Structures are given as C-alpha cells and as structure tokens.
C-alpha cells in the first residue's frame, strides 16, 4: 500500500469506526509494530536519498495526521457514547442462587448470639444409651418422669460395654440434655456451652408435633452461678433473638435434672402482648424448659455440688423458627418441599 492509498483509506476508516476496539484495530493496522505506515517508514532507510527526501516528510506528516485523527475520534467516542434507550422495567437476569433451610438460618443466628455471650458449641451423638439420656440426668428407670419423654428404642441393641455408663438399651435421644453429662465427664468448670441437635420423640405427628425436631441445650457452670445470672443469660439471648422489647417470665415447673425447675415464657414477639392468634391472646409464649442444675447431676459426673453451681435450659428450635418466620405447621420443616424452602 502506498502512502496515497493509506491516505485514502485510513481517514475513511477512522470516520466510520464506532468504538474503541475498532479504533485500536485501525491504529495497529497502520501504526502498529507491523503497521502499513510503519513498514513504509522502516523501509525509508533502504531507499536512495532522493526518494527518502521525497517520501520521508510525507510519511511522517501522514503519521502525525493519523495520530491526530485517532485522538480526535477518541475524544468524540468518549463524549458521544452510543446508547440505546433501555426498558428498565424488564426483569433482571436471573442469577441462580440456592436457599438455606429456615432452620439453618435460625441455627446460625442462635450460634452467633451464644458465641458472642462466650458459649462454646458442642455436638453429641443422636444415638444414646439409657444412662446418658435418663439415669445420669436423675431420671432413673421406672421413674414416672420418664413418661415425659416418649422414646424410640433401638431393636436388639443392648450396649455390650462393661462400664455402667454404657449399659442399658440404646435409644434415639429424646432431648439434647445428655450432652451435659458427656461434656461434664470430660471437662472441669468454669464453662459455658450450647449444643444444638436433632432429637426424637415417639409421638403422633400433627401441626405442632413431629417425631424428629431440633433442640438447643445451654449449660453454664461455675463456682458462683446464681439464679440472677441465669435470668440474665436467658433474657440476653431472647432479646438478641427477637428484639430488645422482649420480656421473659419464669414459672415453676419440674424437670428431674434441675432444681428449681422452671418454664420460660417470652412476651409474644408478634403482638407485643396486645393479644393475637399466635399467643392465643395471652401475650405470652411458652418457649423453654430450664433450671439450676440438680446437685444429683453434678454427683453423677463427680463434681462436688457444694462448690459448683450452674443453670441449664433447652429450647425447641422449630418452635422458635415457627414464631420468628410465621410458619404455621411444624411438618413443613421435614417436608423437603421447595415451595417452602425457596421462601427463605
């Protein structure tokens, strides 16, 4: 291509070009390392001096002109971007995203609250021996209190271990409280632990009962733990979980592994005690079983109940999720129904 030909083409091309990429291509085509004009400029040194004098200034001038044209075009493109009007009411592109089960959402939040309160998360098995699920929690065999926990037993499964602790039949834990015993057997106070997990009850399934659900056990033991401290932790937890406005109420109850035993109610987070269908117009919701750790439980794990005190409470997590997310039926949790899960 001669200088003339370049002259004819390059400015037309620059004029027609529509974007930066095209413009860059034009620059490379003519001024790049192997560009057409660059080739000509490179070849000058092989030409006789006469021709060099003739062509040289022309070529250099053209180079400058092209550079100026490129700059001008660039300025033009910057200042006159080519935009088509868009319909912003068109739907956004769907980026596929999965959903966590509402229970996981709740569990994460609860774990975070307790971690901030200095509690360590401990996990334990779902299959337990009678000893850990009942005896060591001061619920001896043949005690009527065992009727409070309808139990799934494993078939032909008596533990064969010699140690007393593993004697008796295997069962699916009916509560997360056995973790108290496991933990205290292997640790010394002071400590604060929480333990979330699946529990099982032999029950008829309906909108508020399932045979499989989750509990969270909370246990704090130290030399000087008092009832006032117990109330503090319970209140802190529920206020962080629901709202600062939440109130808690304690009333007498009975669980063999605590003394005194209490039932904890919280002020209804939906109506704030104005009365609604959730709290059946009472303003309160029953939410946890709790109490000061029974001295007999400490004795089972070889603590001296004279020198250590503690409190424990257990909450049903599905129940909390139902309250928090306005879920009417506990059976939805285990349904695996994506119409339910995709809402979270």
């Amino acid at each position: 291509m001669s200088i003339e030909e370049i002259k004819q083409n390059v400015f037309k091309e620059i004029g027609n070009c529509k974007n930066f990429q095209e413009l860059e291509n034009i620059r490379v085509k003519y001024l790049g390392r192997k560009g057409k004009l660059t080739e000509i400029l490179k070849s000058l040194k092989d030409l006789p001096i006469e021709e060099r004098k003739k062509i040289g200034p022309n070529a250099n001038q053209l180079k400058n002109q092209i550079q100026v044209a490129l700059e001008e075009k660039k300025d033009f493109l910057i200042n006159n971007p080519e935009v088509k009007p868009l319909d912003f009411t068109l739907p956004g592109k769907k980026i596929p995203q999965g959903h966590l089960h509402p229970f996981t959402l709740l569990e994460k939040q609860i774990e975070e609250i307790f971690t901030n309160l200095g509690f360590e998360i401990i996990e334990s098995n779902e299959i337990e021996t009678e000893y850990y699920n009942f005896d060591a929690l001061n619920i001896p065999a043949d005690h009527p209190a065992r009727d409070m926990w309808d139990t799934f037993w494993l078939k032909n499964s008596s533990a064969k271990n010699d140690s007393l602790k593993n004697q008796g039949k295997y069962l699916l834990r009916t509560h997360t409280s056995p973790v108290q015993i496991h933990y205290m057997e292997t640790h010394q106070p002071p400590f604060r632990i929480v333990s979330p997990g699946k529990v099982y009850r032999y029950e008829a399934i309906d909108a508020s009962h399932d045979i499989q659900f989750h509990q969270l056990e909370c246990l704090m033991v130290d030399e000087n733990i008092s009832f006032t401290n117990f109330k503090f932790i319970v209140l802190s937890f529920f206020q962080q979980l629901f709202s600062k406005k939440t109130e808690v109420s304690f009333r007498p109850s009975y669980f063999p592994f605590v003394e005194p035993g209490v039932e904890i109610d919280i002020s209804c987070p939906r109506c704030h005690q104005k009365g609604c269908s959730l709290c059946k117009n009472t303003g309160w919701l029953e939410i946890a079983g709790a109490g000061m750790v029974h001295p007999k439980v400490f004795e089972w794990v070889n603590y001296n109940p004279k020198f250590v005190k503690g409190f424990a409470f257990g909450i049903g997590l599905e129940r909390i999720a139902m309250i928090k997310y306005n879920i009417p039926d506990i059976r939805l949790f285990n349904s695996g129904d994506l119409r339910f899960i995709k809402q979270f």
Partner: protein
Amino acid sequence: MKFSYNWLKEYLKDLPPASKLAEVLITKSFEVEKVEKINGDTILNINLPPNRFSDSSGHLGLAKEISAILNIPLYLPSFKIKEEKKLKASDFIKIKIQNKNDCLRYSSRVVFDVKVKPSPNWLKKRLEACGVQSINNIVDATNYTMLLFGQPLHAFDYDKLTGNKIKALIIRRAQNNETITTLDDKLVNLDENVLIVSDLKYPLAIAGIKGGKIAEIDENTQKIVLESANFYPTLIRRASKKIKITTDASLRFERHLSPALTVNALNYAAYLIQELANGKILKDIIDIYPLKSSKKILGFNFNQFNKFAGFVINKKFIENSFKKLNFKIVKKTNSDLFLEIPPERIDIERFEDLAEEILRLYDYNTIPIIAPVGLIKPAPFNENVVFRNKIKSILIGLGVDEIYNYSFVSKKDLDNFNISPKNVIELENPISEDFAFLQPTLLINLCKMSANNLRFYNDIKIFHISKTFQKAPIKPYEEWRLAIALSCKDSRNDLMFFELKGIIEQLTEQLNCADVEFKEIKSEWFIKHRAAKIIKDETEIGYFGQLTPKLSDLYNHNYPIIVAELDIEKLYKLSKEEYEFLPLPKYPAVIRDLSILVDIDVKMSDILNIIYQSEPKILFDIDLFDLYENGNLPENKKSMSFHLIFQSGNHTLTSEEVGKSLEKIISNLKSKLKAEIR
C-alpha cells in the same frame, strides 16, 4: 388432674375467683392447663409434677398449697368417728405383709352393718366434677376420700373373703399361674412381678391398681374391710405397664406417696361410710407399718441461699414462707434455720429443694437480673459446625437448595436399594413401617424429595446434610454426610451429570480440597458408565452417579436424577486450612489451539495424561473449549478442541520452543490415540 373450685372453697373461704386463682397457681406452683365452668362449678385442670402427687393430688393438699401462696387461712374439715366399744377389728381380720419392701404401710378398718345404696347428689356431683364415675355410697366414699387426701383406698366385701370367723388379707406377690377378674370383668394373668392383696385362697385385688370381682361391694354387702395402704412405687409402675391398666390409684402410687397419708384418709373414709351408709366402725385401726420413716429435719443456711439466689431476701420473708408451707422451724440461729419437713412433702430432700420453695413464693419474676461475673474466655469456634456451614454457603451460592428430612427409612426402601437390613439399625417401636429403620444413606430420602418436588418444578437442585447410621461392633455408628441431587424434566439433558460434577469440583475447591479425582465404578444403583467415586489424596470421600430408571421409578420418579453422597468428616480432614499465595507470573503466557479427531470412546483423562507427559515443563494449563460429535464427522469419531497454555517461570517463551513442544504433543497423540489433527 381435675380440681373443683367449689370444693376448694370449702377449705379456703377467701379464695379469689377461679381465673385469678389459676394465675397465681401458674406463677407460684403448678401449670393450670384449663379452667372450665361446668354445672355451676369451675374445674381447674392442673398438670401436677410427679413429685408433688404426695402432697397435692387431693383437694386438701392443694388447698394447703393455695393457702401458702395466697396467704389466706385454711379451714380443715372436721369430722368425728364413733367406734364400736366391744367389737375389735383385729378379732375379725388378720393382715400380713409378706415382703416389707413391697408394701410400706397397710392401714385398715372394718365397718359392719353398712347399707349399700346410691350416693347422695352432692357426692355424685363432686365425683363427676373430678371425672370419677359414681358407683354406690361405699365405693364413692373411698373415691371421694382419695380426691380429698390424695390417698387411694379400697373396700372389700368382708363376707366374700375365704374363711369363717377370722379372715385374712395377705399382701404378696402373685404366683405365676394366678389370674384375677377385675371389677370391670377383665381377666388378668398375674405373675411374680405383680403385687396383690389376697385372702387365704384367691387374689382379691391387684395392689394399688385395681380391685377384683371376688370381694366386690354390691347391694347385699353388709360388712366391709377398708384398705388405705402404701405400695412400693416402682412395683406398681412396672405392674401397671405390664398388665396395661392405669387407674387414678396406680398413677398416684407410682409417683410415690408418703406412707404418712394412710391413717387420716382411712378415718375420713370410715367417717363418710358411717354417715352415708350407717356403718358401725369397729374398734381400732389395724396399721402395719414395718419401716416407719423418721422425721425429716433439714438445715437452711441464709448465706448459702443468698449465694444461690444471687441476691438477698429478707430473713423474715424466708421464715414466714416456711411457716406458711407448714415447715416447722425447730431451731433457729443467726445463720441457719432447722426445719421439720411435713412428711407428705416427699419432694423436699435437700437445700436446693428448700431454695426453690422460697424463690417461687418470692416470685421468679421479681428476682433481679444480674450479669455473671468472672473471666469470660473467648468461645472457640466449633470447627465441624463452621465447616458444615461453609459447605451450605458454598452450595447455595452454586444454586442448590437446602432441604431437611427425616432420619428414617422403611424396609421397602432398603429392598429397593438392595441394602441388607443386617447392618442397618432398626427401631424396636417405630411409629409406622415407613419409619422403621435409621437411614444408612441420605440418598433414599433425597430421591423421595426429588420426586415430590418435580410435581411443582421443572428442574431441581437440592442438598441435605445429616447423619447416617450403621450397626458397628462396639456401639452404633453415626456419620455426618452431604447428599446432593439434581433432576430435571428434560430427559435429554445429559449436561446435568457434568453440572453435578462441576458442583462437586467447585465445592471441593472452595473448601481447599481441590483436585479431586473421579474414578468410574460399577454399582447396581447407577446407570452403567454414569457412576464414579470421588477421590482425594487416595482417600475415597464419596461417590456420584445417575440412578437407574428402574430404581428411581420405584419412587415415582420418571426423570433422570443425578445424586452424590460425600463423607463430611473425610472432606474436613482433607481440606487444607490455609490458602497459599503463588507469585504472579512474570513472563507472558503463549496460547496455542489444538483440534483433534479421536475415537468416540477415548477419555478426556487419557488425552490429558498424554499431553502432560509429552510436555511436563512449560505446559501450564489445558482447557477444553469445544466437544463435537455426529454432524459431518466420520462414524464413531469426535472432535475436541483445546487451548494449550504455555508459560515459564524464568523466561519468555520463544515460538520455536512452543512449536517444538506442540509437535511432540501432536506426535504422541497421533501414535498413542491415533488422533487426527484438524
């Protein structure tokens, strides 16, 4: 347990209205489940804890509790019995307890000349209000007494007992072949685990549970023997479970009543029979009480209490509370109280029990709220929980939804998956056949969930993290696993297989457990050539594949379903904790494209192996960007196109270097795979 408001009011003249009463009871004593108005009375349904049956399962006991918590006076019922002067009970009946551990106390009276007839209306109403059926004046008198004192009683027809002048009641274990026909005409087989009350020949009653037909009170009965006894709780509970009979009496006995209750209740029942049936009460009580319990004295230290409560409660309040509860202060110092515990309060055994009495009377809700003092250690994270949460977060980022499901499977499920029930844990008392075994794999239920959801969605991606269970020699084994399932209604969609593979690769990479390998496996669950185990550092961490249509059809699942199951603990162990930074490349990369034509059954992994072996030094990465079958290609051939990325850490590559390397790669592909270069 049902309590009549009107009845309570007889002993508590200042009783507030029922709704107010229920409120105070709930705050300070017991859960009141229901308050309902029936026939001019109000019935309180109270959920009595098992350890308070001894003192509060009768109206009088509950009235005492109410008197204490409301601080209102209690008016005890007054009654007088007239004993016969000449006729002595012990001249007519002998009572023997065979084993003093089985029967802690047996108190008895004999009443002659009773006239059996229907009870007066006031009595019928009382019983009815508390859910007890009226039978006749004698039986009703015993039941009324139970509802008043909490102590169950029984009446035998004296004349129906074996023997002539002197008859006997024996409290003994049944023999293995004995039977009894109960009052409601049920024949019950007895054995040595069941305690009975017998005469010289026949069982007359299942002790503490149910009376028998033989000595039943009927309209002709004239003489009766009244029983007010205390039986060993465990024995009653076991027998009641075994013979499957639960009564108001057995419920009370198995919850441990105080033996101190028997005599008062016995006298009251005799009094009622005297009034209602004109009975003549014989002289003396026959009272067999082999192991008389002694007075229970407990110490209460104020300092210990203040420490336990976490604040100070006025001493006067504490003393008054104990007094209201009838805990007699037998000694008092500046620091301690010594209290005699009423015998019916079997729940009071130690300091904490006393502390509970004070705290609940004080009202839990007025107790201050104080933060615990002491060193707060930062709570360490639970690595396992964190790891599982990380998996969940990654998977939802990849568009997979999390589900929860039951841990149970059925026998049919095991058969479908051809899993031998031998190693699977079975429940002794499943709720139904569908929930009879503990899941040995998460895939079974995931398959069901997938099928269910395809009724509403065209394609689904779900995962589930849960435990699987297996029998093991020492103790049952449980293991955290992750299962993922992909399914869609477009049955031609083979890409799903690679989508799940991609999900697994992404997941493991983000868990710092990258470069997992996939090795084909044969499994009856999966379609041939569509199943692989997942391997990292020579450890198998799981498997994935496409379920056979035969298997998925068993779950009404008629679309392809690709599943994976991974062992979370193994994954956790293999995942590196830290990221490692590699220096950014200093020298430019050179990219060459390579398109080859190979036989259709040549595997990508074979091609990669050959390429990498041909150029171990400067080949940095290989990227498959096109795969093409059919079309204009020769039969049984496929076309594959790769970007080969060359890069060196110490110099800029020259085109000769790269060219040489590419030639070597091409020649090896030609010779080893008969590849044609396109």
